[in-house]
C-alpha cells in the first residue's frame, strides 16, 4: 500500500537559517523555531505569519506545545528556556538554566517538554538526567525534581507521555529512559540503538514510543505500563529505509501512521501496523522537524503534517485521499 502526500504550501516568510523545530497546534496554527534565533507562528491554511518574536542571539533548539495549543515552551542553544502565550504572542516565563543557582553547577538545558497536565516542564542536559521545573508564570523555571538515569551521557531529547504520567528521554549513546513522574523513579531503559537518538514520539494512548536515530533507523517500542510494574515488551519493530540520520519523528493522532524526517532530505510516512513505509517525500534539504496535524483526519484521508528543514522554510503537506 502506498499513500500520496502533496505539497500544500510553504510559509510566507522563511527563517534565515535552518528550522530546528515545528509543532502543529490544536488551534491549527503552526509554531516554528530556527537556528536564526526566531520563533514564528503561522496560520496553517494560508501559511501567513501570525506572530514573530524578536530573534534571540543564539538559535532555538527545542520546542514543545501543550495539548490545547495555548502555551509553547522553547529553549535556546545556551539554555534560556521561555514560555510563550500563543494567543497574545507574549513571553510569560523566562529561565536562565545556564546561570548558577546556589550550590548547583550550571547545566544548560537542551531539550524541553511541557507536561500535558500543566504546571511543570522537563529538561535534559549534558549530565544525562531529566530535571523537572515549574511551568507556572510566577515560579517559572524553579527546579522541582531531578530524575537520574544512572549514566552521564548527553540527553538529546525528552517528551512527556500524552497522559502526563511519564517522561521519556533519549541519550547521545542510544539509550531511552522512561521515568514515572509521580514516583520519580526510572521505570525502564531501552538500548535499541547504538548511536544518538535525536527524537522520540509517543502514540496518543501512550502505549507506543518511536525513536529516531543517527543509525538511519526508527524503532517502535511497546511501552505499556501496568500498575503492577511490569513494563511493555520494548522494541517490537524497526523501520529502515532512510539513507542518513533520522532527525525527527511523530505519530499520527489516529496512531496508524508514523512520520520521519531525515538528513537524507526525505520525509517518510510509515504504516505502523504493517511496519512498512508507505510514502517517501523528497525535500530540498535536511528535514530537522516534522509534526502531524493533531486533529484526527477525516475518514479516508491520511491526514496532514508540517515539516521544517535546512533551508528555513516551513512546509505543509496533505494526504491525497485514501491510497
Amino acid at each position, binding site marked *: 500500500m502506498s499513500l500520496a502526500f502533496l505539497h500544500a504550501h510553504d510559509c510566507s516568510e522563511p527563517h534565515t537559517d535552518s528550522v530546528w523545530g515545528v509543532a502543529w497546534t490544536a488551534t491549527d496554527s503552526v509554531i516554528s523555531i530556527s537556528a536564526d534565533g526566531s520563533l514564528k507562528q503561522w496560520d496553517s491554511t494560508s501559511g501567513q505569519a501570525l506572530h514573530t518574536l524578536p530573534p534571540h542571539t543564539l538559535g532555538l533548539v527545542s520546542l514543545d506545545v501543550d495539548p490545547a495549543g495555548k502555551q509553547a515552551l522553547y529553549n535556546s*542553544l545556551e539554555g534560556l528556556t521561555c514560555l510563550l502565550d500563543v494567543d497574545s504572542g507574549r513571553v510569560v516565563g523566562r529561565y536562565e538554566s545556564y546561570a548558577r543557582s546556589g550550590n548547583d553547577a550550571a547545566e544548560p538545558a537542551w531539550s524541553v517538554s511541557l507536561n500535558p497536565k500543566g504546571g511543570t516542564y522537563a529538561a535534559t542536559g549534558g549530565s544525562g538526567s531529566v530535571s523537572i521545573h515549574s511551568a507556572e508564570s510566577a515560579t517559572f523555571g524553579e527546579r522541582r525534581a531531578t530524575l537520574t538515569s544512572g549514566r552521564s551521557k548527553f540527553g538529546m531529547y525528552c517528551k512527556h507521555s500524552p497522559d502526563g504520567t511519564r517522561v521519556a528521554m533519549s541519550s547521545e549513546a542510544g539509550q531511552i529512559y522512561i521515568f514515572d513522574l509521580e514516583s520519580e523513579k526510572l521505570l525502564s531503559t531501552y538500548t535499541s540503538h547504538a548511536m544518538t537518538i535525536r527524537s522520540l514520539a509517543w502514540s496518543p494512548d501512550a502505549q507506543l514510543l518511536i525513536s529516531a536515530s*543517527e543509525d538511519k533507523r526508527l524503532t517502535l517500542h511497546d511501552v505499556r505500563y501496568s500498575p503492577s510494574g511490569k513494563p511493555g515488551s520494548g522494541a517490537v519493530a524497526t523501520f529502515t529505509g532512510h539513507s542518513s540520520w533520522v532527525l525527527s519523528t511523530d505519530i499520527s493522532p489516529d496512531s496508524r501512521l508514523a512520520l520521519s524526517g531525515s538528513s537524507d532530505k526525505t520525509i517518510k510516512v510509515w504504516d505502523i501496523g504493517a511496519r512498512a513505509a508507505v510514502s517517501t517525500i523528497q525535500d530540498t534539504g535536511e528535514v530537522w522537524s516534522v509534526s502531524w496535524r493533531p486533529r484526527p483526519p477525516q475518514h479516508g484521508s491520511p491526514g496532514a503534517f508540517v515539516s521544517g528543514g535546512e533551508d528555513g522554510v516551513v512546509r505543509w503537506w496533505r494526504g491525497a485521499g485514501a491510497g
Partner: protein
Amino acid sequence: MRYKMNFDILEDDDWTGQVRDVKDPFDPQASGHDILMLDLDDDELAAMNSENDAMFEDLVGENASQADPMQDDFDQIDPVAGLENIAIGFFEQLSTAFPDAEYHSHRKRERNPISISLVDRTKTAKEDGASTMKTVSFPQNTKRGSSRSTAQVLRIIDLMHEALHEEVPITKRDMYYRDVSLFKTQSIVNKYVDDLAATIGVGRGDLNVRASSKGLFSGAGLTIHLHSGETLYGNDSESTLIPVADDIEKFEMRDGLSWVLIVEKEAVFQTLARLSFSKHPCLPGHGIIITGKGYPDIATRQLVCTLADNLPVIIPMIALVDGDAFGIDIMSVYKFGSSSMSHERETLTAPRLQWAGVFGSELAQFGVERDSMLALTKHDEKKARTLLSRPELPATWRRELQHMIFTRRKAEIEVLANAKPLVNDLGFIRPSSSNNQIVTPPVSLPSPENALTRYLVHKLSVAIAGRAAPTLV
C-alpha cells in the same frame, strides 16, 4: 608409546617445550589443560621438541636482539626492518596461539597473553647490556578494551613504517590526529614512539618522526631578507621556518602572486608542500602557504599581519582550519588577535583574513558523510559555547558553531580524505537534487589529485574570482 601433550599455547614454564608426565593420561582435567593427545614415537617426539625450541628462539631471540641497542654497534640498524620485526613477531605469536578455528580454551589462566616487548626507558640497562623490557599484552584485562594498547602500538608502527616508506616525515602530533579515537591522548603516542625507537635501537628521527617546530611557509613567490645578510628563499615543495619579525629586513614578492593560504595543521601543510600546491596549475597564479602548527606563535602572526598590510587588496588571504571550536579560535587569533597580546594588536592581526573552511554545514556537498565526522567532546562543546558567548561574533562563525553543537559533530580537515571521489569538469562535486550524483569526467584542465587539493582549488578559485562567495567572512 609415550603420550605428549601438545600445548597450543605454551604456559610460562613450558617455553622450553618440555614434556609433562600426566598422572592419568585419559583424564584431561588432571593437568587442567585441554589436551590433544598424540601418538608419537621417540623420534617424532624429539623432532617436535626441537621444533618448539626453535620457535621459542625465534620469538624470544628476536626480541632479545632488538632489546639490546649495544649489540649492533657496527651494523647499520635498518629502522624499517626493526619495525617490521616487531609487528611480525606479534603476528607470529598470534597465529601460533590460535592455530585452528576449533581451539577453545576454557580456563583463563592457560591462555598466555600474546605480547609485544618494548624497552622500558625508565629503567637503566642491566649489567649484561640487555635492557629491561616491559610488555604490551593482548588480551588485556582493562576497562578500555582488551586490544587497545596493542592496537595503539601497531598503529604507530604502521605510521612510522609509512613515513619511512613514503619518505614523508611525520610528527608525533600528526600521528595522534590520524587516529584520535584510538589514541585518546597525545601522551600515549609520545610514549610509544620513544619506546619503539629505543626498542629498535635508533633515534626517533631515523624513524622519520620529526620534532615540531615553529611556523613554516612554502611558495617560491616569497623571499625574506634578514638583517644578518642571510636570505630565505621560499620553495614550492619544501617548507621554510618563519623567522621572527625583528630579524627581517625586507620581503620580496615575485610577480604573479595571487593568493595566500594559512592552514592550521602542519600535516596539511606538509601534504600541500609535497604536492607543490603553491604552484598548482588549476589556479590562476602562484601562492604562499603558511602554517602556525595550531595556535600560531608571534613570528607567524607577524608574517601574516605584514602580508595583510602590504599585499594588494585583490590578493585574497584565506584560512583553512578544522571545523571545530579550536579551529575557529585559531582563525580568530590570526584575524583579531589574542587576549594576551592585545597590546601589540596592530602588528599581529590580519582583519582581511577570510575563513574558507572547513565548514561542517557544507561537507555533504563534498561527498563527506555525516557519520565520518568526529563526535563533539565535552571539551569541544565547552569551547564552542565560550566562543558563542563572545560579542560581535561574525555571523558565519556563529552559524557553524551552532551547527556543530546541534549536530554534535565537528569537521576536521582530515575528514575530507574520506570524501567520495566524485568530480565534475573542474573538480567540484555538483550537488544534485536526487541522491544520485552525476559524474562527468574532467575536461581540459588536469583534475587535482585528491580531495584536499580539490577542495582548496575550489575555495581559492572562488576567493580569487571576486571574494563574493557567501561562505567567506
